[in-house]
């Protein structure tokens, strides 16, 4: 009887703890590192007030200079490092985060929280999990199989918004067989943020970045080639790189790529199918309308549209930059 009573008490305590979870101000490091996939976002304790996305102590917001487009949704990014650990800078590349790190990205449309994607650095590597927000905006629930939501973009277009499933997270986040963060590369973070992060003891040093990716809102102030290459790096190169999901295409769109054929100049497609749009080359200098890259960006049909994942409407600002860049190429 004593055993049973104790068990009941324990169970009661667990339920009480769960009920309090949304207002907890403490990140639960074990939720990040242990083997399970928490069913609710609140179990991590990343937010003091989840609905307002106000971060718990130790959870640092950041932004990317040029972000992935994602139908123009508002994105709130946070990073959490376990107490007493720090990330290592690797020149202008991805910050090297210790085990126990969580990267958190919340998507908002029409002023509402839609989904939060988390990347958890475990002993076994990075794990990507998608969480869908409830109607009350109090918590988000794990949706390993993804979901579709009717929504409106900031441009006012009605779309079927897709929350990626766990495998689709990996499609973009895999280099070879390894899951990896994409966004927080030093070149796509501001010098001020890096310095502050280092001062806070979360980064070994603020790295010198030779060629920083420009702020997307400053795209008209920088050479069009810089803005265009920044856009391609951020929106395309996570797949279009030599060890990414599109490695077999031979089309590589990273910031560091110099080879013109790899970048698509006078390069023929290999497996484009009707994605070619009847065109011969990925990029025809001077002729955006004859370039497959532009055609696929400007198309929303499955099997044609690029990127394949993470968008349901056209990025008109992105198209403008890519159009101007290709038109100016000789």
């Amino acid at each position, binding site marked *: 009887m004593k055993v049973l009573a104790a068990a009941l008490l324990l169970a009661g305590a667990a339920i009480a703890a769960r009920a309090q979870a949304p207002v907890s101000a403490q990140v639960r490091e074990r939720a990040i590192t242990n083997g399970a996939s928490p069913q609710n976002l609140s179990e991590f304790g990343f937010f003091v007030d989840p609905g307002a996305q106000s971060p718990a102590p130790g959870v640092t917001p950041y932004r990317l200079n040029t972000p992935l487009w994602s139908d123009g949704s508002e994105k709130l990014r946070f990073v959490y490092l376990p107490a007493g650990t720090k990330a290592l800078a690797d020149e202008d590349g991805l910050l090297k985060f210790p085990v126990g790190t969580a990267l958190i990205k919340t998507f908002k449309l029409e002023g509402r929280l839609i989904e939060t994607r988390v990347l958890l650095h475990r002993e076994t590597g990075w794990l990507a999990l998608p969480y869908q927000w409830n109607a009350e905006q109090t918590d988000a629930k794990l949706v*390993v*199989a*993804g*979901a*579709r939501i009717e929504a409106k973009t900031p441009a006012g277009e009605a779309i*079927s918004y*897709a929350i990626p*499933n*766990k*495998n*689709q997270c*990996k*499609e973009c986040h*895999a280099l*070879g*067989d390894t899951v990896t963060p994409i966004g927080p590369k030093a070149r796509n973070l501001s010098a001020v943020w890096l310095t502050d992060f280092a001062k806070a003891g979360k980064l070994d040093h603020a790295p010198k970045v030779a060629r920083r990716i420009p702020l997307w809102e400053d795209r008209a102030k920088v050479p069009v080639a810089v803005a265009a290459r920044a856009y391609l790096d951020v929106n395309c190169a996570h797949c279009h790189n*030599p060890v990414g*999901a599109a*490695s*077999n295409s*031979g089309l590589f769109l990273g910031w560091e790529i110099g080879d013109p*054929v*790899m970048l698509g100049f*006078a*390069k*023929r*497609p*290999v*497996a*484009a*199918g*009707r*994605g*070619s*749009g*009847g*065109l*011969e*080359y990925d990029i025809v200098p001077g002729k955006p309308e004859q370039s*497959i890259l532009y055609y696929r960006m400007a198309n929303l*049909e*499955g*099997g*044609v549209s690029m990127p*394949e*994942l993470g968008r*349901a409407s056209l990025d008109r600002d992105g198209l403008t930059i890519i159009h101007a860049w290709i038109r100016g190429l000789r």
Partner: protein
Amino acid sequence: MRITALFIVAASALALAAPAHAKTIAVAAGEGGQSRLQEALIVAEPGDVVQLGAGRFVLTDGLSLDVKGVTVRGAGMDATVLDFSGQKGAGEGLLVTSDEVTLRDFAVENTKGDGIKSKGADNIVYYRVRVTWTGGPKETNGAYGIYPVSSTGVLIDGCKVSGASDAGIYVGQSKAITVRYNFVEQSVAGIEIENSRDALVTGNMVTRNTGGILIFDLPNLPVMGGGNTIIEDNLVVANDTPNFAPKGNIVAGVPRGTGVMVMANDGVLIRSNTISDNPTAQVLVVAYPKPFTDKTYNPLPRNVILSGNRFSGGGNEPQLPGGDMLKAAFGGRLPDVIWDGIGKPPMAKDPLQILSLGVPGPEVGMAEASPSLLNLVPPALSATPAGVGAPTALDARAQP
């Protein structure tokens, strides 16, 4: 007692051979099929079977599998149908990115992009899978039906593909490949092996495509140097569908009515096939015809060998520049084997005359051509491909 002990040892050995708690996850067709099926493909563990019920799964998004050693098994290629007619996103119907996967006994219909793609998925088996675009050959159909790429160890056995706007079965940038006993029709290419090595293409029926079996090597790709491939005992019959590939794709240049076509590649043996009624060319051997800058790429076909093929009909409606004049000159039909004349001619183990188009070099075009008939010479023994095909261990996963 000793016998009992032995028994226990044997039983534990068996237990070790299969993952300890391999299980079957049953997924029925019907309401919520998209998320139930996708969730099963995510929670499956190595050794598990995801068992698809009979019926039609109505899907709105591409599916994906990223767990090693999983079998996805339906109730038969006509009983279990994954219907992508209403697909909204993703570049293919099903994407596999893990090793040692078996896909069997189900169908994929009307995907917006490719049917089933497996990338970097070693030792994959496709067995009795059907991929169909039900509206017949259309430019708006997806590109590839069955599409393994960047993989070592590929077995495609007993599958059926119809309506692909590129290749019905396409194996790219891979090695150790067997494509056998499949039926491909009404696609631009029936079977295409591209930038790959050590492939065995045998016992297939390819008909009513634009081209039957294509062995290509293309420049500017991460994996090049295709070759060491055997094409034997296939039926390559009446591939006469007008080319409906979107322009820009390499297969858009395949003439309607091509039986077997080799472009670039080193070491292709075409042996004991029945090649009938392909109206342009029963066998066509060519160099890569387009400009390229890749210095590591060899555009010429080398060591292409013909042996013991049974030819009948064909060559009567050649879709080649000057084809009508050539046809008249040869009394109504072209010879069975046509070579563009660039590099060294194919070789034959039996007395065979071929038509050389006499194109003087790559990137020159037919305007400068001077056609002639050649007697083929036998190959050196060392030139014959050997050691082709998928690892034999994969056969165990391709059984009824």
